[in-house]
């Protein structure tokens, strides 16, 4: 029983970060109906940037998003204008192909620049563990989960109350009507894409406080966030967080009780089953 609770606790903490990663993907998919296959590799890229910031300039992983967020935001704008915008009117095969190209590109370049061996930062200022009776929680994971939730709430506020946020929501509902109302939808698309990519910078920084990074990670985070997106459907941030938790907990339980190798298996199985039986997601609005 204690093992179950401990495992669920770990899953919940990871799930919050997963939800943050998937939020970026969901923003992009919701607004322009493009699934960014390279999303997982964006996470990996920001983890490597965090590693650089930490090892070369001694910036703690938890503060590194101050640098990596603008970097990834800019990168998102560049990718949008350079690649995504050109293919928006094309056959969906072309849309997917261009992000697959980007995914392969980022995967190969990280392998060339940082080599195949795993990289980790030596230490972070958030260290140590907290004990609740017989349960232990790593402080870095707890703080990362809390920060993730705070960021998700900020984004949710941004989407609900600010003008650019409302523009994003309007464009995602009906881009034609939105552009008739005077919303520059190209700029909104660029903003959504850049924001989605910027969020991975925060997630990458948080992950680096307790994890190492290697070039195979992109694929895992990619499929993980697709799974959460499929579970959550579109339009509900609460649904996204719950789906993130479901994925995190099932991954953690599978690792504890079945086989450490089964962690990905469980996620992919959930993904396929959800697509079969609930193609619009469990919490989907549209």
């Amino acid at each position, binding site marked *: 029983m204690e093992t179950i609770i401990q495992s669920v606790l770990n899953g919940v903490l990871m799930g919050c970060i997963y939800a943050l990663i998937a939020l970026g993907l969901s923003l992009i998919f919701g607004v322009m109906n493009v*699934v960014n*296959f390279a999303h997982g590799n964006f996470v990996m890229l920001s983890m490597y940037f965090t590693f650089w910031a930490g090892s070369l300039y001694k910036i703690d992983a938890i503060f590194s998003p101050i640098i990596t967020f603008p970097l990834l935001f800019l990168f998102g704008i560049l990718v949008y204008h350079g*690649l995504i915008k*050109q*293919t928006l009117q*094309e*056959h*969906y*095969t*072309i849309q*997917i*192909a*261009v992000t*697959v*190209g*980007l*995914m*392969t*590109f980022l*995967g*190969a*370049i990280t*392998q*060339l620049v940082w080599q195949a061996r795993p990289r980790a930062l030596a230490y972070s200022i958030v260290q140590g563990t907290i004990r609740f009776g017989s349960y232990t929680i790593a402080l870095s994971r707890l703080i990362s989960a809390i920060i993730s939730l705070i960021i998700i709430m900020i984004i949710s506020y941004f989407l609900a109350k600010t003008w650019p946020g409302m523009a994003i929501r309007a464009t995602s509902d009906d881009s034609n009507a939105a552009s008739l109302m005077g919303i520059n939808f190209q700029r909104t698309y660029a903003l959504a894409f850049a924001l989605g990519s910027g969020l991975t910078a925060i997630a990458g920084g948080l992950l680096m406080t307790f994890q190492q990074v290697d070039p195979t990670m992109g*694929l895992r985070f990619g*499929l993980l966030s*697709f799974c959460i997106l*499929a579970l959550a459907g579109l339009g509900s941030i609460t649904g996204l967080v719950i789906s993130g938790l479901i994925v995190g907990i099932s991954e953690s339980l599978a690792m504890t009780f079945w*086989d450490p*190798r*089964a962690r*990905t*298996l469980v996620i*992919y*199985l959930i*993904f*396929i089953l959800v*697509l*079969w*039986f609930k*193609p619009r997601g469990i919490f989907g609005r549209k």
Partner: protein
Amino acid sequence: MNFFKEMNLGKSLILILFVIALGIPYVLRTNQYQVLLATTVLLYGVMATSWNIVGGLAGQLDFAAFAYLGIGAFVSGTLFIRFNLSPWFGMFIGGLVASGFALLIGIPLFRFGIKEVWYALTTSALVEILKVAFNMWEKVGGPVERCLPYFSGSWQHMRFVTYAPFYYIMLTMLVIALLVNQRITNSKLGYYLKAIGEDETATEVLGVDNRASKLKALVYYSFLIGMTGGIYASMYGYIHPSFFNGPESTKVAILGIVGGRGITFGPLLAALLLVGAQEFLRASLGGEFSGLYLLIYAIILIIVVLFKPRGIATIFQDIYQKFKTKEVKK
């Protein structure tokens, strides 16, 4: 044969290329490693050509090529190891099991209307699922390579000491894959698939059975690749869960898109150019540039997608058309 009755520029070009392909193992006979690399180029040619049925004609972006290859390899290899069944038969069983598996996945997938992005994601998840599953399934897979018997060679069991026979087997597979492709393209099924690839809803409205057509395409594709899997296992002499290779599956799809979706010879052309260049560089530079290679693939894919979204084969088609009109004018 019909083929020789209407001889024209395109067909004579294909014949010349085929004759050149026949001679390659003789040219490279001093270096077995290079024959293996040439066979690898053909392997990707077979896979990309088969991919064209589902990914090109039917427009279903499939990233599971190596899932079917792995299944074919494991079925043929396991039958060989356990029951001493020759891979000459095993490869057909491998193809059947691979297409059975494709049906198992495809029926619910198409039944629940999963298409476009979600189809692509499902298939890329499929390769990873199988890789993990076979790693954990110790009876058949497991993390250790399982070697095929008859090290010293035995032609009845598709075991050869040189790579040249595999080269010819793969060449035969390539011809079969091209013929199947050509047949489907010019059949009723081919027109259905092309229509589905353009607009699924419109095709459905016009009374085409989308689901059945896509399933048929999937069965042809997975059978061809499953059979190739049997050859693949015999060629490398072992079976291992790393056969379920995600990035390589993506590479097959890249070849298909770069070559030209729905054009019979397009994916083969891309495979010859890209994989050919890759294996040539590997032979001359060594394996240290493998990461660099994916980078080049990615850049070529992005450039082709942005500037020639119909594929590089269209360039050659345009040139060919020009020649043809000149001939007519004379």
